[in-house]
């Protein structure tokens, strides 16, 4: 095909065709990926819930309960296996972090025992406060299987039971603060 | 606080070894060679030929154009050749070589040493005498004095400044001259005042010459309108821009001349030469210079015929010491090193300095550590470290913008640099290159 002259009409037509083709293709691909994208998105949240509570069959996202505290919101996701409540995942926060707010997902068994904790969001210093993540150190493991009723959620320096991350008392304190807040809310109204 | 200029400056050890030595007349040498270019401007043109007999004081080369100067024979004898001879420029340049025979002078010169302190020539007459006597600035720049004294139209001088600062270490010629020919200098100053039509003449002298200050102050009482000012010791106070700043707190604008701030500056030697030219009809054929150095046996001040080879002068001061490392025509800060003892004394030679071996060598160059010492000492407010690197990288436009042409080449920056950087060497090179560009633009 020969190159078209750059007349105004030619240009309009070409561009129209190009845009038509592209947009049609894009529209189609969008339709095609819409499903997987949505799944991936919801899987992201569920993933965190999945990780912190035992196996469940319901859709905790549908049954979420919001509790407002300290100018922010905690989310309680009940996890049920059939009709049986197997645990509650609490999305909690603290503003006492070293680098800014920290958001955690704390999984409680129905009796209030901490099952697991996942860090959703933090801005702590790499190498210091970021050791609260499971992938970086064992710090958060010490909470597993502890019930805050008989495990004091504050660092040893402040008379609690938690071993702080080396050189990161502030982050450790903040972590405890977030877990404590989750537990309080869980206690107050979490258990259905 | 004594007066001094505001910014920069250094105070190197003074070493004024010959400070109180009386000026002696050096015997007339056997041959003299008189360079045709002893002044700033166009070289003079010889008016004698090989074989001609000349008398002392006779015109032998005529000024060529306005910015040029007459040259007279300092001796009587025969012209043996007009040829290239090494001079202080470091190159061989045309000179008239005269073999001395007898001591005949042209008749007009009054060789009597008595002071004549009255004159009543008109300004034009004085200027003409100065022009004819071939007087140039004795402060080192050798700028023809009649040019300086011809005030451009539209400008007016209000001060005459006489430069008795002599801030260069070692040199004492001006000091000795002020002590011995004080009154003549003052008369010369009166003459200059008349030419310039100013009421006030200021004589600036650094306080390391208290006797000269005292001597001239006392003498000046007789001469109305002349005032002597003691100044704090600081190099380069003798630079005319700095001296003007120190004395009357005016700054010569960048690229400007002293006359732009209503002044004319002359060296005490020039004033003396003017006195001799006007009152005694004596052209500029001899000058006072210092021969000095730590290992010179007799540091002295001599009155020397122009054209005398410096070897004669050094001989008279006790000969060249064993440990000579460097021979400098002028002072240690601005003088020029020379490599040939046959180089003649010229109108601008203010001294001969012999540096011993260890002092002659420069030290190893280190990288610039940006200590800003060079900036702090630069009397012109320049940034020598920057100028040097711009010059090394051939960035002429930036050099011009950084005002490289304002540098007075005082060398304070090189003196002070802890890294021994050859700042002035490169700045000078930059000035040459930028100067070329500026000229090509015109």
């Amino acid at each position, binding site marked *: 095909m020969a190159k078209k002259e750059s007349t105004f009409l030619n240009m309009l037509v070409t561009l129209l065709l190009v845009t038509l083709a592209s947009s049609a293709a894009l529209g189609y691909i969008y339709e095609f990926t819409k499903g997987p994208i949505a799944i991936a998105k919801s899987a992201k949240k569920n993933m965190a819930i999945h990780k912190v509570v035992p196996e469940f069959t319901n859709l905790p996202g549908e049954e979420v309960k919001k509790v407002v505290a300290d100018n922010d919101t905690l989310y309680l996701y009940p996890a049920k296996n059939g009709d049986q409540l197997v645990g509650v995942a609490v999305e909690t926060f603290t503003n006492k972090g070293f680098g800014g707010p920290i958001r955690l997902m704390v999984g409680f068994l129905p009796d209030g025992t901490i099952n697991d904790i996942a860090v959703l969001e933090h801005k702590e210093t790499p190498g210091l406060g970021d050791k609260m993540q499971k992938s970086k150190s064992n710090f958060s493991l010490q909470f597993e299987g502890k019930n805050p009723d008989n495990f004091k959620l504050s660092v040893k320096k402040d008379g609690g039971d938690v071993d702080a991350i080396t050189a990161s008392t502030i982050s450790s304190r903040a972590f405890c603060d977030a877990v404590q807040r989750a537990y309080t809310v869980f206690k107050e109204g979490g258990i259905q | 606080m004594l007066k001094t200029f505001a910014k920069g400056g250094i105070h190197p050890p003074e070493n004024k070894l010959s400070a109180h030595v009386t000026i002696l007349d050096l015997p007339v040498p056997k041959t003299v060679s008189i360079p045709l270019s002893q002044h700033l401007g166009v070289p003079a043109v010889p008016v004698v030929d090989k074989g001609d007999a000349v008398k002392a004081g006779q015109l032998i080369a005529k000024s060529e154009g306005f910015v040029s100067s007459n040259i007279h024979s300092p001796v009587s004898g025969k012209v043996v050749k007009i040829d290239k001879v090494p001079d202080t420029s470091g190159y061989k340049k045309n000179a008239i070589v005269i073999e001395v025979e007898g001591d005949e002078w042209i008749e007009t010169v009054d060789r009597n040493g008595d002071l004549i302190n009255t004159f009543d020539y008109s300004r034009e007459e004085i200027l003409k005498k100065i022009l004819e006597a071939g007087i140039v600035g004795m402060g080192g720049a050798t700028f023809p004095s009649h040019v300086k004294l011809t005030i451009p139209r539209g400008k007016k001088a209000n001060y005459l400044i006489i430069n008795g600062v002599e801030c260069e270490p070692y040199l004492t010629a001006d000091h000795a001259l002020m002590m011995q020919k004080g009154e003549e200098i003052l008369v010369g100053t009166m003459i200059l005042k008349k030419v310039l039509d100013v009421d006030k003449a200021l004589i600036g002298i650094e306080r390391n010459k208290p006797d000269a200050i005292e001597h001239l102050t006392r003498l000046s009482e007789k001469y109305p309108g002349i005032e002597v000012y003691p100044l704090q010791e600081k190099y380069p106070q003798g630079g005319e821009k700095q001296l003007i700043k120190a004395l009357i707190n005016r700054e010569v604008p960048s690229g400007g001349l002293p006359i732009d701030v209503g002044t004319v500056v002359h060296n005490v030697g020039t004033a003396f030469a003017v006195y001799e030219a006007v009152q005694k009809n004596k052209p500029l054929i001899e000058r006072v210079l210092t021969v000095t150095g730590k290992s010179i046996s007799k540091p002295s001040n001599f009155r020397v015929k122009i054209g005398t080879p410096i070897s004669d002068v050094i001989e008279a001061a006790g000969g060249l010491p064993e440990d000579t490392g460097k021979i400098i025509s002028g002072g240690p800060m601005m003088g020029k090193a020379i490599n040939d003892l046959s180089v003649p004394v010229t109108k601008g030679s203010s001294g001969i300095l012999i540096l011993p071996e260890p002092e002659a060598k420069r030290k190893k160059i280190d990288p610039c550590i940006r200590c800003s010492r060079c900036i702090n000492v630069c009397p012109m407010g320049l940034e020598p470290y920057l100028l040097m690197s711009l010059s090394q990288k051939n960035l002429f*436009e*930036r050099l*011009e*913008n950084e005002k490289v042409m304002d540098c007075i080449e005082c060398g304070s920056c090189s003196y002070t640099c802890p890294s021994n950087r050859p700042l002035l060497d490169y700045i000078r090179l930059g000035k040459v290159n930028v100067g070329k560009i500026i000229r*090509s633009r015109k």
Partner: protein
Amino acid sequence: MNASDCYEQQGLIEDINEGLITVNVKNTSLCADCHAKGACGFFDIQKKSIQIFQSSANFKVGEKVNVILKKSLGIKALFLGYIMPFLVVLVVLIVLSILHASELFAGLVSLSLLIPYYVALYIFRNKIKKSFTFTLRKIE
């Protein structure tokens, strides 16, 4: 003229007509310094011609020259061309939002105010033209 107060651009004289010299300067894009500009075609080099009234005695068509613009004029151009319209948009936007106009309205109105701004520039174009003077210098 002191070079530090000026910008310079190389150009080629395209035309000389009764003292009106037209010079083509290359306006290089951001990628000017990039040696891969040959590989990159993003809105590449454009030419701009500049008209200068200057005695044309010394110049020939096809000659390379430096076009010199005073730095203060460059800054003025920057101001008129970019900063001022930016301020206009910003101020109007802020005023409208203080008045609680809807975002769409505020946004569109403040953007459309660029039109009168440019119209104003157009009206004053001759005045502007007078204040922007260029000088030519030969490149040896």
